[in-house]
């Protein structure tokens, strides 16, 4: 068992013991862990903020390039090539954004605002770039089947989505002591 899992188990046992002493019903596994792991709404808001930043920057760059190209009166084929290059740059920018932040501090700007952090379950630190890339691919896969891969966190004791299971990560609240 990893360090995170053992810590989680100890904490859950403590909560259940306290509940028994107080005469309250014992909390379920998922409810007990809710205080540490970031939930659906918080993570959705963080992702929305990140999307805002990514799309905002992409929009500004696209507008700048588009205005420049419109002044040059380039042939249609060149326009298509530029559009394709911009599309590829957009994808690279999006992937690079998440991979960079997840693998450096574990927090994208959206995560930072919402005070949550992605960590590797094994070393309790930031992800390696390869694992961050796996997590990003997992995020897309999780969203494809009508967000089922994301909504599965609602029934997970550590609030893990598909991308978390694939990359072996968890998302913590940074301002709640674990």
């Amino acid at each position, binding site marked *: 068992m990893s360090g995170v899992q053992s810590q989680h188990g100890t904490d859950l046992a403590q909560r259940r013991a306290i509940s028994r002493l107080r005469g309250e019903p014992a909390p*379920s596994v*998922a*409810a007990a862990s809710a205080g540490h792991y970031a*939930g*659906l*709404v918080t993570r959705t*808001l963080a992702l929305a903020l990140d999307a805002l930043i990514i799309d905002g920057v992409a929009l500004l760059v696209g507008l700048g390039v588009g205005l420049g190209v419109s002044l040059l009166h380039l042939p249609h084929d060149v326009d298509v090539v530029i559009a394709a290059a911009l599309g590829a740059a957009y994808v690279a920018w999006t992937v690079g954004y998440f991979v960079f932040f997840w693998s450096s501090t574990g927090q994208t700007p959206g995560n930072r605002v*919402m005070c949550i952090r992605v960590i590797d379950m094994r070393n309790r630190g930031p992800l390696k770039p390869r694992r961050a890339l796996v997590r990003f691919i997992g995020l897309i896969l999780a969203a494809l089947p009508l967000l089922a891969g994301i909504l599965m966190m609602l*029934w997970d004791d550590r609030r893990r989505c598909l991308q978390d299971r694939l990359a072996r990560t968890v998302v913590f*609240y940074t301002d709640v002591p674990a």
Partner: protein
Amino acid sequence: MTSPRSLFDAATQLATAPLRVAAYAGREARDTAKVAQEAILATGEQAFFALLDAVVTKMMEDQVIDRVLERAEAAGVAQRVVDRVLEDGVIEQIAERVLSGPEIERIVAAGFRSALPEEVIEQLLASEAVWILVDEIARSPSVTEAIAHQGTGFLEQVAGKARDRSRRADTRVQRLAQRLGRHGREDADTGRAGISPSPQIPGGDVR
């Protein structure tokens, strides 16, 4: 024919004539004395002021006042007076009286009622030095830091509110999902119990 009453009146007039003459003479004498007294007073006053004027002129010409002040200064009179005033707490008493009394308030109120404040502000706004001072203050690190801190403080406040609400929403959504999951499991269990696929035989196991 002369009546007795007119005879009596004439006799009375005649008898009191000396008295009336004496009264008239007395009044005249009194008025004359008053006029003489006023004339003497005016003359005396003129003489006194002329003398005073001459004395002051003489003092000024001979620099008497300067010499007196020099002597007083040499003797340390002014210092002694100041020391005495300060030791006795006269200054404190005056300050306390002025500050506690309504005079200051009246003076300030009168100052604000007058056109003085507007003129002062107009003069200030027209002064280039004031704007240079304002620019310097606005550019100072402490002010810029305070403004930046205020901006980030507001954003942090908004983010904090959003975080609090999202945490509560996290818990609610999770609870709702678990309730739905529990209902689904109960329904499935109930369905399986109703079908009863494996009847139990006492004393033995069918499998």
